[in-house]
C-alpha cells in the first residue's frame, strides 16, 4: 500500500519496522503537497527544509534506539498555532507579516514527540468561519469536489489530511472548527474537553470556547496524537491538571453495554434527509455492535447558536484588540495620528467576517446591553451545560450528526451569515459546555462525506475514541480517499 494511504498508526508501525525512513516519508508527502496544494490551497506555508531536518533527526533518534511512537510521523499545524521562526498568519492580512518568536505548547509537544513538521495550514480568518472562505489567502477546496467548501475553520488541515498531503494535522475548535470540516472531507476529528489541551500559543478567538485538537484519518490516529498534546500546562490557567490516560490502550474498551444517547434535538427540522438517514444508520450499526441506544433530550440545545453568537463575538472583540498596528501585525501606511493608526490598521488588516464579529461583540458588551445579551447568553450557556450533565446521568455518549448537510458550493452562503452560522448548530453545544466530541465518517451523500458526531462527558475522550474505533473496525468510510488523491 502506498505510503499516503496508510493511517498514522500504520505509518508509525512502518517506521518502527524500518520499512521506510522518516526522510523518505517526509519527501513523499512534500512531493504530494507540491503537486496538489496549488489546486487545494490547503497549505499556507510549506516548511520543506525544516521537515527534512526534523526527519533526519527522527531517523537518528530511531537509530539511537530512542524513538517514541510518533517519531518521524509528518504532521501539519493549523496556522493559528504559533511556531518559532515560521509565519503564523491566522488566515489574516493582519498577521501576514507575523513570525512568532516562540512555539505554542501543542507545537512544542508534538516536536518533542519527534513528529516532522511539513507546514502550516489554511483556515478561516482568526478561525471565524465554517467554510474556509473567510481566509485572506483564499478558500480551501474540498478534495472530494473542488467546487465545494471543505468546512471551517480548520479547513486547510481537513483538506490536507483528506487528500493525504499529510497524515494528520492539528486544528482548533471554537464552535465546530475541527469536527465540521472533518465531517465535510470524510476524516476523523476530535475536539477534546476544554482544558485538556493547552491554549498557550494558540491565537485566541473566543478563549472560553477555543480548544486545540487533532484531524486524522481514524479515531486510532486521533488517540495517538491526542496523547502527545494533552495534559496540564502551567502557562495556561484554564488547562486542567488531570492525568492523561493512555488513549491508544483504552481504544480496546468494549462497545458492549455502552449507553449511547440519541439527541432528539439533533434530528429536528433543518437536518438534510439523506444526511440524517446515514447518521441514523451508523447509530443502528453501533447498536448491532453491542451498544445500547437510548433517546435523550437536551431541551435548551436549540438555543446554542444564538448563545454562541453572543459569547464568542464578545470574547473575540476583546481578544482582537491587541491587533492595533503598534507592536506587531499589519500597520497602515503613514498614519496621521494615533486614531488614524488604529482605524486604518484594523480596517485594512481585518476581513469582513472578523469585523462583523468584533462589532457584534462590542455591542453585546456595551453599557446598557450587557445584561440583555452577554449576561443572558451566559445564563443560557449554564442551562445548556446542565442539560448535558443531566443527559450524561443516563447515557455514556451522545450521538448525532456533525453537520446538517454535506459540503456546499464555494460562494453559496458567503452573503448570508445566518445560514452560514447554522452549519455549526450541532457542534456548538459541546463548546458551550466544554465537552469532548469527535466526528467520524459515516457514509456519503452524492459523493460527499457525512460525519457522525459523538459527544462525551468532561474528560471522556477515551470513551469517545473507543466507540469511534469500534465503529471504524466495522466500517471503511475513514479509509476512503478521493480518486484524484488515491
Amino acid at each position: 500500500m502506498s505510503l499516503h494511504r496508510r493511517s498514522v498508526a500504520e505509518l508509525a508501525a512502518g517506521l518502527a519496522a524500518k520499512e521506510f525512513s522518516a526522510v523518505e516519508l517526509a519527501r513523499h508527502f512534500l512531493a504530494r503537497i507540491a503537486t496538489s496544494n496549488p489546486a487545494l490551497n490547503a497549505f499556507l506555508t510549506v516548511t520543506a527544509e525544516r521537515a527534512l531536518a526534523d526527519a533526519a533527526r527522527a531517523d537518528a533518534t530511531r537509530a539511537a534506539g530512542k524513538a517514541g511512537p510518533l517519531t518521524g510521523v509528518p504532521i501539519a499545524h493549523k496556522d493559528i498555532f504559533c511556531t518559532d521562526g515560521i509565519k503564523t498568519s491566522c488566515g489574516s492580512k493582519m498577521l501576514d507579516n507575523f513570525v512568532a518568536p516562540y512555539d505554542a505548547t501543542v507545537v512544542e509537544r508534538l516536536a518533542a514527540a519527534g513528529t516532522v513538521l511539513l507546514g502550516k495550514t489554511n483556515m478561516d480568518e482568526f478561525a471565524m468561519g465554517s467554510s474556509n472562505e473567510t481566509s485572506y489567502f483564499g478558500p480551501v477546496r474540498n478534495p472530494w469536489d473542488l467546487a465545494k467548501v471543505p468546512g471551517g475553520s480548520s479547513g486547510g488541515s481537513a483538506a490536507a489530511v483528506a487528500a493525504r498531503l499529510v497524515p494528520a494535522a492539528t486544528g482548533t475548535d471554537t464552535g465546530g472548527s475541527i469536527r465540521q470540516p472533518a465531517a465535510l472531507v470524510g476524516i476523523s476529528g476530535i475536539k477534546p474537553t476544554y482544558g485538556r489541551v493547552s491554549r498557550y500559543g494558540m491565537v485566541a478567538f473566543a478563549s472560553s470556547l477555543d480548544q486545540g485538537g487533532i484531524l486524522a484519518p481514524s479515531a486510532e490516529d486521533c488517540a495517538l496524537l491526542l496523547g502527545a498534546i494533552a495534559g496540564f500546562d502551567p502557562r495556561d490557567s484554564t488547562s486542567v491538571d488531570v492525568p492523561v490516560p493512555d488513549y491508544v490502550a483504552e481504544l480496546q474498551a468494549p462497545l458492549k453495554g455502552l449507553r449511547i444517547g440519541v439527541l432528539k434535538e439533533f434530528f429536528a427540522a433543518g437536518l438534510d434527509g439523506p444526511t440524517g438517514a446515514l447518521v441514523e444508520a451508523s447509530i443502528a450499526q453501533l447498536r448491532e455492535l453491542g451498544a445500547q441506544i437510548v433517546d435523550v433530550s437536551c431541551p435548551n440545545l436549540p438555543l446554542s447558536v444564538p448563545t454562541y453568537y453572543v459569547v464568542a463575538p464578545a470574547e473575540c472583540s476583546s481578544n482582537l484588540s491587541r491587533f492595533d498596528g503598534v507592536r506587531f501585525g499589519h500597520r497602515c501606511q503613514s498614519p496621521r495620528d494615533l486614531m488614524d493608526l488604529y482605524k486604518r490598521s484594523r480596517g485594512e488588516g481585518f476581513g469582513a467576517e472578523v469585523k462583523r464579529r468584533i462589532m457584534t461583540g462590542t455591542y453585546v458588551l456595551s453599557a446598557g446591553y450587557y445584561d440583555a445579551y452577554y449576561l443572558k447568553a451566559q445564563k443560557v450557556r449554564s442551562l445548556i451545560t446542565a442539560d448535558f450533565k443531566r443527559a450524561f446521568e443516563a447515557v455514556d455518549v451522545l450521538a448525532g450528526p456533525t453537520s446538517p448537510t454535506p459540503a456546499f458550493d464555494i460562494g453559496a452562503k458567503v452573503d448570508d451569515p445566518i445560514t452560514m452560522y447554522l452549519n455549526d448548530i450541532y457542534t456548538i453545544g459541546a463548546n458551550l459546555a466544554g465537552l469532548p466530541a469527535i466526528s467520524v465518517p459515516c457514509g456519503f451523500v452524492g459523493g460527499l462525506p457525512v460525519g457522525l458526531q459523538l459527544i462525551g462527558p468532561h474528560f471522556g475522550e477515551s470513551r469517545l475514541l473507543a466507540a469511534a474505533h469500534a465503529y471504524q473496525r466495522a466500517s471503511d468510510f475513514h479509509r476512503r480517499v478521493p480518486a484524484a488523491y488515491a
Partner: protein
Amino acid sequence: MNQDTVRDGWEVVIGLEIHAQLATRSKIFSASPTAYGAAPNTQASLVDLGYPGTLPVLNGDAVRMAVKFGLATGATIAARSIFARKNYFYPDLPKGYQISQYERPVVEDGSLEILLENGTKKTIGITRAHLEEDAGKSLHEGLANASGIDLNRAGTPLLEIVSEPDLRSAKEAIAYLKKVHTLVRYLEICDGNMQEGSFRCDANVSVRRFGKTEFGTRCEIKNVNSFRFVEKAINYEVERQIDVLEGGGSIVQETRLYDSAKDETRPMRSKEEANDYRYFPDPDLLPLEIAPAFVEQVRATLPELPDEKAARFSLHHGLSPYDAGVLTSSRELADFYEAVVRELGGAAASAKLAANWVMGDFSAFLNRDGLEFGAARVPAAALAGLLRRIQDETISGKIAKEVFELMWADAAEADAVIEAKGLKQITDTSAIETAIAAVMAANPKQLAEYRSGKDKLFGFFVGQTMKATQGKANPAQLNELLKKLLGGP
C-alpha cells in the same frame, strides 16, 4: 489659599482611590521582573507585550499581599473573586484591555481609623481593594515627532484601594492617605515611593450644602504624586466647585488633572467622551478562589500594626497619643525607637527621653541628610550610649545636642566625643562654687540689684556661670548653689 476652612454652609465630601504597587518580585501575570528604572522594554516578556497566543498566569504573591491588606483593615476576603477585562485602546496598553477586578473584588468592607486634629478618632470605610495590572508608559521626551512606549511597567501588580466617601476635608483625606501609606509599608506589600509612582492617588471630590444627605456631583482628580499636592489639589477643587455653585452654575462630572505649577485642576476628559470599558469576566483566568486555610496562613504573618503599636507605646511606655502616633508612622522609625529603648534597659526609665531624641535631633539629621534608617550615622546603640550619659548626668541635655552633632559628623561614640572635647559635666560642688564666686565678683552692680529684689537677674547669673564653665556645670547643682550664694532677693 486658605487651607481647610470651608466656606460657610458647605460640606466637602471626598473619597480616595489609591493605587499601591505591590512589592512582588515578578509581574502579576508574567514572570518578568518588576524592578524600577530599567532601560525601556527590557523587562517586558511576550505576555507583557500582549503577543498573540500568550496567556496570563496569576502571581500568587500578589494575592497573598492583597489578603494581607484585607486582614489588616478588618475587611472581608472574598472566597471567590473574578478577574475582568477593562477594554480600551491606548498605546501603552498592549492587549487593548487591562485585567482588573470589577464586580467581585478580592477585598471588601474594610476600614481604617484616622486621628483628627482635635484629637478624636474617625473611622474611614474602605469599600474595596482589588488586584489589577498596571499599564506601560508613553514617553514623549527626546523623541522628535514621535512617542515612545516603555512596557516595563505593563503588568506590574497594583492593589486599588477604594475608600467610602467618608472624608470631609483635605486634611482628613491626607490623614487617611498617610495612614494607608504607613500600613502598606508596615505590611511590606508596597514600597510607598510616590515619586516613582508606586503609591498614587485619585481623589473624588464633591461639595454639598450642610444638612443635605444626597451627594453633589463629583469630579475625579487624577494621579497626584505627593501628599502636599493631594491636599492642594483638593482644596483648589473644593473652592472651584463652591465658586461654580454659588455663581449659579452646576458641576459637570468629569476627570480633572492637577497642575502643581499653577496650583489648579483642569478638565482631562468629560463624561460624554468617557470610554465604555465593556467589562466582562476574563475567560483566560479562572475565578480566584481563596481557601480559609490560606487566609489564616497569611494572618499568621501579619506584623504588629501601626495602631496596635501606638496603643502599646501609649499604654506601656507612657507616651502621649501624639508621640506614639509619630513614632509609629513608619515601621523603621518605631523599630529604631524600640531598639534605643531596649539598649537603655527598657521603657520604664527611658521611653520619654528616647522618644524625644528619636523624633527630635535624630529624625532631623536623618531627614537633613536624606538617609535611610540603616544608613544613620548614629545607630540605635550609639544613640542609647549618648542618652545614658544624660541619664547618669555626665552631660546635660544641652551639651548632649553638641555631642550628638559631633557623633553624627564622625560616626563616633558618645563617650569618645565627651572625653576628647572635655564636655564632661562639672558636678564638683567646690568647682562650681569657685566659678560662681568669680562671677559675683565680676558683676557687683547686678549682684546688688538682684539682692535688692530684681529676681529676674537670677537667669543672668545662671548664664554667666554656665559660660564660665563652658556649659559643663550640672544645671540642677548650679541652680541650687547660686540660690545659696546669691542670698536674697
